[in-house]
């Protein structure tokens, strides 16, 4: 009952007019950003990090959470109407949603997606309420070795589960760790990689790194390859669902969160794998197998529900352990750091107003999303026609505002461009951006925990593995590292599905389902 009471208090926080306003701003901005091609939720939250200088933490996180959920919905709108998904989470929405839109059932596809997001988000957030306090309680007396183990897990997970190449993931992580080293050593004040520059002695602000990699890097990358004729969106009316559609979709909506939530909570690439798994499951269970590939509504409903539930799962790990499992969570973690708040088991004790206000606002945001998005869908579709020069000029503009707001120094803008060029190069050569961002955000913290742990054990490496928790986490790490070898030993399938990179968790869970077909 404790969680319930706290949640009620949270609603007290979330339903104040000002926080309600931030939630509304968040979901509207998030949806718009999700719809706009080229801007993902991570870039959006990164571009908005500067508001943390002026806003109280509760308001800021309510807005960020609204953006996260809103962008998920907006991304699927783009996929359905344009068939060129920008976010990996929205890839699956295009597979059935776009054929539906082409055959004049775009309104139903959007409705199935919107209700799916609502259902998935609701169930996911309820699970968050039920689980998060328990996880936080279990983890409440974890110490430096455990924190270090969690961070190692985050590093290994983002480099080896995501993307197609471990070497490139690792390269990206090391670039991030290197950027994180710049500045004064937190424990001794020793200058590292500063080359005598006073400005670098303060370190590179994480806002500049996130905005540079996500926003400037993306804008430059698109500029190099700008499609001269943007694809034409399919016009669409107000979303609605008929009785027959409802009968087909409600089970898919209900199944989605079961797949999405657990995958969101573990570092396995956010919504990409669960949406795909949900797609496969729905296809197998569907009574209308002939429609698949031509616009089966279950193929939109299930995955979209899974996507939103995975966002809730992501928040569980982020809030209770301080473990970011997606790019958005990583940037939100950076926002916590801006406020000097350390997400983790103690967060629920130290900042109950903030956490429960944030969780309650997720429910509020979901209702707002459903209420706003059904009538506004035709308007969102118009956003797809925004001239691309304005879009990317706007991204550069807001990136500059954000970086300048950090300290009011022009040199920060130069640094931003340099990091943007690194982001450009990473996109060109297939180095994933997320490991670098995680490296910058968690690197310095990981080093501190490592040194603290070794200080306690007086330099003995056993000090890193002297708790059951850390041993468990390292076991998971070893499993992740050994996975390619294990997979070779197991019987496996030959082809990988179009558009989804072969990843460990995915093939693990998909193998049995494919046997049956």
């Amino acid at each position, binding site marked *: 009952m404790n969680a319930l009471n706290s949640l009620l208090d949270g609603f007290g926080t979330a339903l104040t007019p000002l926080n309600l306003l931030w939630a509304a701003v968040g979901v509207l901005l998030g949806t718009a950003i999700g719809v706009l091609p080229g801007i993902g939720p991570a870039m959006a939250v990164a571009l908005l990090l500067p508001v943390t200088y002026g806003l109280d933490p509760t308001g800021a996180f309510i807005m960020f959470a609204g953006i996260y959920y809103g962008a998920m919905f907006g991304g699927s709108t783009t996929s359905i109407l344009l068939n060129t998904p920008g976010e990996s989470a929205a890839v699956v929405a295009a597979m059935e949603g776009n054929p539906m839109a082409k055959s004049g059932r775009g309104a139903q596809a959007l409705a199935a997606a919107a209700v799916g997001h609502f259902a998935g988000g609701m169930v996911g957030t309820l699970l968050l309420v039920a689980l998060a306090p328990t996880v936080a309680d279990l983890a409440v007396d974890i110490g430096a070795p455990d924190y270090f183990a969690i961070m190692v897990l985050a590093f290994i997970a983002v480099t080896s589960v995501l993307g197609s190449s471990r070497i490139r993931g690792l390269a990206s992580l090391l670039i991030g760790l290197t950027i994180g080293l710049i500045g004064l050593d937190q424990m001794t004040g020793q200058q590292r990689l500063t080359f005598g520059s006073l400005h670098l002695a303060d370190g590179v602000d994480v806002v500049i790194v996130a905005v540079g990699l996500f926003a400037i890097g993306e804008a430059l990358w698109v500029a190099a390859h700008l499609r001269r004729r943007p694809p034409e969106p399919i016009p669409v009316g107000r979303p609605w669902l008929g009785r027959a559609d409802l009968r087909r979709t409600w089970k898919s909506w209900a199944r989605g969160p079961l797949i999405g939530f657990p995958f969101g909570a573990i570092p396995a690439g956010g919504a990409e794998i669960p949406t795909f798994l949900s797609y496969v499951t729905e296809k197998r269970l569907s009574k209308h197998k002939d429609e698949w590939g031509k616009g089966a509504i279950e193929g939109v409903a299930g995955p979209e529900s899974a996507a939103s539930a995975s966002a809730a799962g992501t928040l569980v790990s982020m809030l209770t352990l301080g473990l970011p499992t997606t790019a958005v969570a990583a940037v939100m973690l950076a926002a916590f750091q801006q406020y000097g708040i350390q997400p983790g088991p103690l967060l629920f004790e130290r900042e109950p107003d903030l956490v429960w206000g944030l969780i309650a606002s997720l429910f509020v945001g979901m209702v707002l999303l459903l209420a706003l998005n059904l009538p506004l869908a035709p308007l969102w579709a118009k956003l797809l026609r925004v001239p691309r020069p304005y879009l990317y000029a706007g991204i550069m503009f807001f990136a500059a505002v954000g970086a300048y707001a950090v300290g009011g120094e022009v040199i920060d803008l130069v640094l931003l461009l340099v990091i943007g060029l690194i982001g450009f*190069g990473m996109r060109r050569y297939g180095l994933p951006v997320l490991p670098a961002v995680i490296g910058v955000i968690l690197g310095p913290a990981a080093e501190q925990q490592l040194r603290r742990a070794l*200080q306690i054990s007086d330099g003995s490496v056993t000090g890193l593995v002297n708790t059951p928790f850390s041993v468990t986490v390292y076991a998971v790490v070893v499993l992740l590292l050994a996975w390619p070898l294990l997979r070779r030993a197991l019987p496996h399938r030959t082809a990988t599905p179009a558009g989804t990179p072969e990843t460990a968790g995915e093939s693990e869970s998909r193998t049995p389902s494919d046997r049956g077909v």
Partner: protein
Amino acid sequence: MTTPSTPAPEQTGPVPPATPRTARSWLRDHSELGVGALLLALGVLVLTDALTMDVDITQRGPVGPKTVPVVVGIGLLLVATLLAVDVLRGGRGQAEAGEDVDLGEPADWRTVLLLSGVFLGSAVLIEPLGFPAAGALLFWGAAYTLGSRRVDRDPLIAAVLSLAAYALFDKLLGVPLPGGPLMGVL
């Protein structure tokens, strides 16, 4: 069954980069080796910096400020080597796809350079001109570089956007931005 239940054959995922089979030169085809070289240089830099650190006085506890940079530096050297080996064996990093990204066309370096130039130029102008003016120039310049040629509309949008952002940050959020001579007049 050799073909599993893969989703619709329609291309929804990242389109593979169009690497021309008749590569003009070996170097061009192996340009990714440059990434390895950069990582190698970065590793040497990090290691040099770490090993030239003077830590005798400041060190507290068994692990000083040197350890982690040394690990990161060695990691960079290792990854640089592994990447080079991977590239030489035919591995290629896949260029990132996106809604507005057309990988079928060769990269447009001119636009990238111009865009970077516009960005740097505006950055330098923030202090003398103030944020509203420099920001407007940044937006207009970037839009122009990216191919927008509406001389009537573009500057107007740029000015409105820049003033709105200035008002939002400087007045509403309390993040000070320089107004410049222009805001002194208004």
